[in-house]
Each structure stands twice: as C-alpha cells, then as structure tokens.
C-alpha cells in the first residue's frame, strides 16, 4: 500500500485541529476518516473526484485499502499509473511484488533460469496469492539466509501458524539481529508474545528492536513503537497486526 501511494499519489497530512478538514465533513478535532483520495484540481479540467476511505473505522485494513486505491486509479486512467521500470525480468517482478501484483510478477518469472533470487521472488508471489504449498516448495530448495529465513517466517504467519514461528524467530534474532531485516523479526516476535498475553515480554522485545533499528530507519520499528504505546488500548479486531 505504501509503495502504491508513494508511486501514484501526492500524500499530504492535514491537521484537523483547526477545522481545515471541514470541507470533507469533518468537524474540528474529529478524526472520522483516515484517508481521502482526490483527483487534482486542473483549471478547466474535470470535476474533482473525492473518495473517503475508512470513515469511522479505527485502522484501515491494508487489503481493503489496496483494493480501493487500485479501483480509484482504474477509474482515472487519465492520471497515468506508474509502470515497472525497463530492466531485467527480476527487477520488474520485484517492482510488481512491491505493489502486491503477484500474478503479473509470476508471469514475468516463468521460464527464467533458477537462482536464489528467483526462488525467493516466486515464494513471495505464491505467499501473496495464498498458494502456500507452492511457496513452501520454492523455499525448500533455498539455502538459509536472512531473506530466505524471514520469508519462511512470514509464510508461517500467513498460514495462520504464527505460534510455530517462535523458534525460527529466536534463531533468526540469534543469528541476524544486526541485519536490517531483523526489525521485522523483532516486531513479529513481540507480536507473538503479545498474542500469548505476555505484554511485558512483548514490550521488552519491541524496545530491543527499536534500540537496534531506530524507527526513523526501519518501518517495522515504527510499527513496534506505535504498538507498544497503545498496548493498553483496545486493538482493532478488523486488522491482522502481523501483516
């Protein structure tokens, strides 16, 4: 979703303390929408199209938000959606996977000579398509590395087998704690503790990850930071936090 936004939109935060969002039906101080998609104002151009997502919801579900963003872009082909860069099939597939376009990525990867990078991309695509057996099979043939080990862990979470990821996550953090990928592993390990009702342990793991990988550098540390802050608030049920 972040990649879709950065590539296709001009994102701006609107501070609604002063009522600047009143034109969207929001009273000052209220936060009854999370994301607004809006076509640009062009003198003499078409009427501005505004879509408000997630009204009255606490947190947007990423899958639903992605679908809404894609529908908005499809409805406005005149805005021109970003396209994969000219480059190798692997580079193009990576670009597509970054936007969640798993089918198109798999098409591009067909018939290419086998390599770790190819296997990893195919495993990611299969995971996004929920074709878990094929993802498993791709990963089975790959040697251990931070990227491959983390993909195996992600797959366990996607298969709703998160608790089985506890030992692999501990192993990962034992081996690769300083690697940039470890920020995600810290978040997931803390999340498993949280799910087991061990919030103190979860906060300890998140804090350790934040110390090693500052939130300004690692998205998963941002997520860990926000999650540990609101650990005594009711977490929204509509979103799988491990995604």
């Amino acid at each position, binding site marked *: 979703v972040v990649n879709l*936004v950065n590539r296709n939109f*001009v994102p*701006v935060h609107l501070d609604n303390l002063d009522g600047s969002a009143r034109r*969207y039906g929001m009273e000052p101080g209220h936060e009854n929408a999370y994301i607004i*998609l809006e076509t*640009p104002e062009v003198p003499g151009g078409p009427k501005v199209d505004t879509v408000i997502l997630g009204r009255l919801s606490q947190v947007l579900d990423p899958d639903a938000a992605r679908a809404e963003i894609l529908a908005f872009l499809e409805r406005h082909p005149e805005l021109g959606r970003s396209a994969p860069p000219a480059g190798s099939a692997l580079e193009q597939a990576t670009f597509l996977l970054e936007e969640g376009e798993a089918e198109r990525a798999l098409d591009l990867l067909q018939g290419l000579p086998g390599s770790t990078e190819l296997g990893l991309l195919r495993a990611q695509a299969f995971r996004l398509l929920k074709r878990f057996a094929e993802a498993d099979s791709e990963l089975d043939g790959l040697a251990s590395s931070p990227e491959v080990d983390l993909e195996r862990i992600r797959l366990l979470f996607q298969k709703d087998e998160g608790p089985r990821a506890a030992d692999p996550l501990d192993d990962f953090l034992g081996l690769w704690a300083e690697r940039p990928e470890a920020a995600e592993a810290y978040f997931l390990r803390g999340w498993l503790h949280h799910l087991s009702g061990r919030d103190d342990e979860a906060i300890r793991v998140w804090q350790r990850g934040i110390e090693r990988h500052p939130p300004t550098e690692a998205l998963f540390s941002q997520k860990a930071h926000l999650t540990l802050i609101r650990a*005594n608030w009711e977490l929204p049920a509509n979103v799988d936090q491990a995604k």
Partner: protein
Amino acid sequence: VTAAWFALALVSGVIELPFSGAPLEPSRLELVSRIPGVARAETGAGALRIELAQGAELRLSTLRKALGTRETAIDRRRLPLGPHTIFEMDAGQCFFCAERPLGKRLSRRPVVRRWTVVDYAARGRLRFRIEPRTADATLGALGRLPVEDILFTTRYEGVERVELYWPSGGIRWRESEKAARREASDSAKPLLIFPTAGT
C-alpha cells in the same frame, strides 16, 4: 524565565532532590546508587544529589522504594520543577482525548507558564514537561496532578515537544497542503489526504 529555566538542564547529569526527616542511612544511599542509570549518589545539606548516566531516567517511585523508610523521604513539595522533571500519566485512550482535560487542569494553575508533551511511552503513557512562571517553582506549588510517576532524565533535553508525525509508515508526506495541491495539479497525480486531529 524560559532561557534561565532551560539553563537548569542537567549538563552534568546531576539532580538535587530535597529530603525531609532523618539523615539518610549509608545502606540506603548504597541502594540508591545501585539503581540502574544512577552513576553516583551522595547526600548533603538536606538534599540527595544524584548523578545520572547519559540518557538514563530515574523514576521517583523507584527512588522512594530504594529509600524505603518512613524516617527519610523525598520532599515532593520542595522538589524543583526543572526541564529534566518529566511527568508521566496513563492516558489510557487516544492521546488527543487525554491531553485536553489535562491541559484544562494545568492552565488553571498560576504557577504553570506552559506545558508540552515530550514523548509517548509504552502502554499509553503520556510524558509531559511543565515550564513554570518562575525559575524557583516547586512541585508543591502545582498541587495535585493526575500523574502516575515523575521521571528525572536528560533524555528530552532539546526536545520541546513530541514529534507527532514521524511514524509515516514510509509514506513521503509533503511539507504542506498548498505545496501538495500544486504538485498534484502540475504532475496530474491524485492527492492522498490523511486528516488527523493531532494524534
């Protein structure tokens, strides 16, 4: 007051906490010096003098536990309100919703010049600093506040208020609405607008 008051910041990492009652027993002082983050502790002239390690935070509750005696106690009424004195409360809800009632209470206190939230901490804790009208103001002048604990730390030196919007989730937010609207029109790209009310 502001410059003089901020000059009280712990350049050397030393805080002085007035205590009342009997002189502190050496064994208690030893316990205080063993609190994580305390580099050195000594007493003199009715005050406990504590040198904090760089970036460490010392909780008043931890200190009171270490003192553990009814005969000697930190005198909260005489405790100076310095830039390193950070108040922590359990917001228990959206920070914006918690800040408003807190602000109302603080604005009624004549001793308060202004206050700012310097950080959000684990489990919905809000950390704020109170800048008094006079540099010699003490906690006693504030009266009762809805705080759970008081921290002493140099961690927030130079931090006027918490940066609310750094958790961007990787999205490259533009500087202003005006700039974003202009860019959207010029580049024929749609806007993605994220309205919040300060949280």
